[in-house]
């Protein structure tokens, strides 16, 4: 079974701050990491390969040349091969054009299964996984917390819903996005790190995947980011205190009238 795992290199947002003047992320000195949700996808891919005793795991990422570090780390965590989608034409893409680029590369790789984290911790859209499935016209299951069984042609998975779990049978090839409940990712091993150091990372551009330059990157993006800002801090609430409950009620009503809330 050939499994493609889509990963994204993101700033380690546990340490990131927003510059209040420019409203942009302060990227300087912030370490880049594999999107944490994607590490669960990598682990699940490796576990499926180990369980089946055959197959390979290819990690796929669209990003700048530095994203190669994330792909090498994925190899140290057990992935077999890595492909970096890197081109100026891809830059500035929104979730629509990004998922198109990934889908075209996946079509070329021809896997049986695509795994991704449920969302990235920088954009938090959770749209790229489903977008890939749309562009490929493959079935999708999102927020997968368990793969019950997987074999030729079909997978049975559990999806986390807001109020419970859903058990889905999906035909393969399919796109699954996973949540952190699915597994506990392993730590990189020494031999994995050595393999990662020596690994050859394949790099593809728009020509390699047969993408129309007009449909990818900023040009192919129907959405644009108008503005990024940190929400203004809300002050502490005002406590209304009085001698009796009826007096408190009177003050609250007066306040509501004053603020014209109702």
């Amino acid at each position: 079974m050939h499994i493609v795992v889509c990963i994204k290199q993101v700033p380690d947002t546990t340490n990131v701050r927003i510059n209040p003047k420019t409203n942009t992320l302060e990227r300087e000195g912030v370490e880049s990491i594999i999107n944490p949700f994607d590490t669960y996808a990598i682990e699940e891919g490796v576990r499926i390969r180990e369980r089946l005793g055959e197959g390979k795991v290819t990690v796929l990422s669209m990003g700048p040349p530095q994203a190669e570090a994330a792909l090498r780390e994925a190899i140290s965590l057990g992935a077999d091969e890595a492909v970096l989608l890197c081109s100026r034409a891809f830059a500035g893409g929104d979730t629509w054009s990004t998922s198109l680029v990934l889908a075209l590369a996946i079509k070329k790789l021809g896997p049986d299964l695509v795994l991704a984290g449920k969302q990235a911790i920088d954009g938090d859209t959770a749209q790229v996984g489903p977008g890939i499935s749309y562009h490929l016209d493959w079935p999708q299951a999102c927020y997968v917390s368990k793969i019950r069984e997987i074999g030729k042609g079909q997978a049975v998975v559990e999806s986390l819903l807001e109020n419970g779990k859903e058990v889905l049978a999906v035909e393969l090839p399919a796109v699954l996005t996973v949540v952190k409940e699915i597994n506990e990712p392993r730590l990189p091993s020494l031999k994995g790190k050595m393999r990662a150091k020596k690994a050859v990372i394949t790099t593809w551009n728009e020509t390699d995947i047969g993408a129309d330059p007009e449909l990818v990157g900023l040009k192919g993006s129907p959405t644009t980011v108008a503005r990024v800002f940190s929400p203004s801090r809300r002050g502490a609430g005002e406590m209304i205190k009085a001698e009796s409950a009826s007096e408190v009620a009177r003050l609250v009503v007066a306040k509501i009238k004053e603020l014209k809330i109702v």
Partner: protein
Amino acid sequence: MDYFFTEEQQMMVDTAREIAVKKIVPVRAKYDEEQQFPHDVFKAIADADLCGVYIPEEYGGCAGDTGIMNMCLVTEELSKACGGISLSFAGTALGTLPIMIAGSDEQKKRWLPGIATGTLAAFGITESDAGSDAGSMRTTATKDGDDYILNGSKLFITNGGEAEIYSVFAMTDKTKGARGASCFVLEKGMPGFTFGKKEDKMGIRASATRELVFQDCRVPAANRLGREGSGFMTAMKTFDNSRPGVGAQALGIAAGALDLAVDYARTRRQFGQPIIANQGLQWMLADMAMQVEAARALIYATARWIDSGASRPTMASAMSKCFASDVAMKVSIDAIQVFGGVGYTKEYPIEKYARDAKITQIYEGTNQIQRNEIALALIKEAARK
């Protein structure tokens, strides 16, 4: 300071550090308190391929030509987090060295690949009446056809009861004294090989220290390492290689304690300022740092010398173990002083460092025995001039 590790060594250090931070720090207090063996942590160490860092490639490891240095680096990193849990790894190395030193190619092929992938090993020489005086051991191995019959017991055995493979020393000829000892590899589950009392200890409580008992235990001659009577030499060569490892354990404890002391001194405020602003405390930390770095330099130099093929590194090995363990004791006690009252409580991890440090001055030869070795080497050297 930059000690110019190879790229592989830097990976070993980084891998061990990640395990120390993510897998050991969160559980060290629990294992210390409950005095349980950390099988889950050891599995993580094995899964990260660290068990093979001192085992040659042809036997499933990745030692390259820097096996002892690798072993020291990994031991140091793990010990920064817990000097007890790290002993699952370091104690296995001690039990493995006799096989690497005296084993035949066939014997190495039989046991080393398993150890490189996570089988625990142990080393058994000490007896109740044979501690520093290892030559007076009473455990016997009597030849019987193609086998030996072992009788006796071994005391204070690290990884005892938990390990699968044991390098055990026994007298094959009592009349010859030290020259009558031989080394055997025993496997857990052999009829007549059982485990006795598990010690309740001051420190390294996450490490199992247990008695090995042999009652008419039949061991095939194929399990004897080296020729009959070569056991004592095997033990001495083992210690030459393993003592920098004890030094590295002590070094890790000292370095870990120093890190905690510096962090605490920067955050603890008294008289309106962090206590690290006091020059008296700064000088204390400076002395601690100097001692740690000196221990590190001595251990690394010794380990590299051994890896280069040194024939008699006894003096340097003894110095590494003795110096680093004295440093660990001093630095960990001083670190408690930096913490003040809370450092004396189990709410904070620092008191454990001092409890764990103490054993490094005692085992694999007390520091008095190490000083004997160093002095003996000095005298020999002077006599040769």
